[in-house]
């Protein structure tokens, strides 16, 4: 999985952007029923023909498709995502308000799952075939089969309701008037359960990559050479194996972040956490299509940025990719 940023990658990312924007443009226009409902958010049945024509002209649905398409691109390039059907607020504002919360919990869970996955994966590979390896492997496969929302619901039931030690929802206590450290602790305590859920779910991916990539390194000739010249186990593990294993793991971590972002739709819904994911859920249940679309573009951008980071990081970590 060696990565490098080259012309091919850049084209690929360009195509992804075009596909995402085009999907957004076409979906509401291709769906059965009157596109006015999906694009202008109005109940078509209640309008007089004149009113209907006026709205069609205002949102530009009377123009030829290619003109609408160009206009759509123009809006996106200038950062104009339009207004929410429900709250009539500019969508950009809504997204900016939600983004920090999502960044907070995904960022924290990335750190936790990275540490846990790397350590457990290394132990597993080092002890390949033992009971510990088998146990961890089955544990991780089981976690991958967990419905994410269910894990969140269970954590709420146990920690917030049964034991009452942590808050079950929201990012801060509403109207608490807390300040300073109390406020910080308030934010942290609200983040613990969502971060724990996301971390548990993200660990198997890191673990599997770490374990596999380390098993591969362990089979390399230079490891045998190191052993043959009498290097101690510890020296082999940290000096030779770990250093050569870390590159693919970092790539996976960067890519995970993009996907963890998408996963927040479900986790933030369970915890009523006011991030971007919850916004998507609210938009979907309120049929607020423009908000849904804008959020989809933000998620796409997030995935592209993390991919780009992976491309740029890889040559720094793994010098073998620098030549050629």
């Amino acid at each position, binding site marked *: 999985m060696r990565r490098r940023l080259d012309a091919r990658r850049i084209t*690929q*990312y360009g*195509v*992804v952007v075009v*596909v*995402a924007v085009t*999907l957004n443009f076409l*979906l*509401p226009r291709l*769906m059965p029923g009157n596109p006015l409902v*999906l694009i202008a958010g109005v109940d078509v049945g209640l309008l007089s023909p004149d009113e209907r024509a006026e709205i069609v002209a205002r949102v530009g649905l009377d123009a030829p498709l290619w003109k609408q398409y160009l206009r759509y691109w123009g809006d996106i390039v200038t950062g104009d995502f339009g207004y929410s059907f429900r709250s009539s607020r500019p969508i950009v504002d809504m997204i900016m308000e939600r983004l920090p919360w999502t960044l907070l919990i995904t960022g924290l869970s990335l750190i936790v799952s990275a540490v846990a996955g790397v350590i457990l994966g290394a132990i597993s590979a080092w002890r*390949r*075939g033992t009971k510990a390896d*088998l146990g961890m*492997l*089955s544990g991780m*496969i*089981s976690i*991958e*089969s*967990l*419905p*994410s*929302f*269910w*894990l969140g*619901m*269970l954590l*709420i*039931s146990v920690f917030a*309701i049964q034991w009452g030690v942590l808050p*079950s929802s929201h990012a801060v206590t509403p109207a608490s008037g807390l300040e300073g450290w109390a406020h910080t602790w308030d934010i942290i305590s609200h983040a613990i359960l969502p971060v724990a859920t996301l971390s548990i779910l993200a660990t198997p991916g890191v673990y599997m990559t770490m374990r*596999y990539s380390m*098993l591969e390194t362990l089979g390399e000739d230079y490891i045998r050479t190191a052993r043959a010249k009498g290097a101690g186990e510890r020296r082999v593990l940290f000096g030779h194996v770990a250093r050569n294993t870390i590159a693919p793991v970092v790539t996976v971590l960067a890519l995970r972040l*993009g*996907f963890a*972002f*998408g*996963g927040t*739709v*479900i986790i933030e*819904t*369970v915890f009523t956490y006011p991030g971007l994911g919850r916004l*998507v*859920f609210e938009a*979907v*249940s309120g*049929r607020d*299509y423009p908000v*849904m*679309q804008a*959020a*989809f573009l933000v*998620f*796409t951008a*997030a*995935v*592209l940025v993390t*991919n780009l980071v992976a491309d740029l990081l890889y040559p720094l970590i793994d010098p073998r990719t620098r030549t050629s």
Partner: protein
Amino acid sequence: MVADRREEAARRTARRRSRIPTLFGLTGGLIVGILVCGAVFAPWLAPYDPTERVARPFLSPSSEHLLGTNDIGQDLLSEMIFGARVSLTIGIIAAAVALLIGTTVGVVAGYYPKRLGSVMMRGVDVILILPFLPLLIVLAAYLGRSLLNTILVIGVLIWAEPARIIRSQVLSLRSREYVLAARSMGAPDRWTILRHIVPRTALLATGSFVRAVSSAILLEAALSFLGLGDPIQKSWGSILFWAQSRGAFLTPAWKWWVLPPGLLIMLASLGFALIAFSLEERINPRL
């Protein structure tokens, strides 16, 4: 002496390693077998009709209603037994759709690797980059809530991984002697592909299919949980959607209303994942 002991240890490890796939496969097969039986014999196993209001709402478990009743007085145990039908059917058919697309793309891209194949694989890469879950949700929201739409949305989004796997197999198959022989004797491409290529991707395709079922079951649950599932045919995910919207996980009811359906989803997904794991190990040992 030391070398002997090391060798002995290595041999023992190798033996144990080969047992892991079998162990996983048998466990997975057992789980899937039990769940499928539950789904098939649901009308005989379920104590009540899951669509009938048979008791007062929000009942705790009792000898008459082993898992209590839901917010409109339907028997939860019966709902879960019948839910197996919806969840497993969607999982299996969506995976079949994905496999059909994936195999077609994989075989064509692998057999014509030059221009057509490389363009197709670029397309596959693009699909793999798009933010998966948000895209799934957006598509499902536009298409509307029905069994068929859920199947289609999941199916058309999870075929890319199988396509990749099958393509790499086809790439290596197409330069095998018997394929070259067939082609040099003037066999048409279609015949070569159907006669020599496709049958030999069967094992790999089976592995991809089983893995796809495992993820499709989870995706269906997630969609239903977000309220995007079929409103009439209740799956395990829909039961959890109602449990969530009625706040069941904030009351003691979580033990019989939230815990069991999630456990069933997990078991179903795990069962298929374990089978997939053991198949993949057989084809390409990695454990």
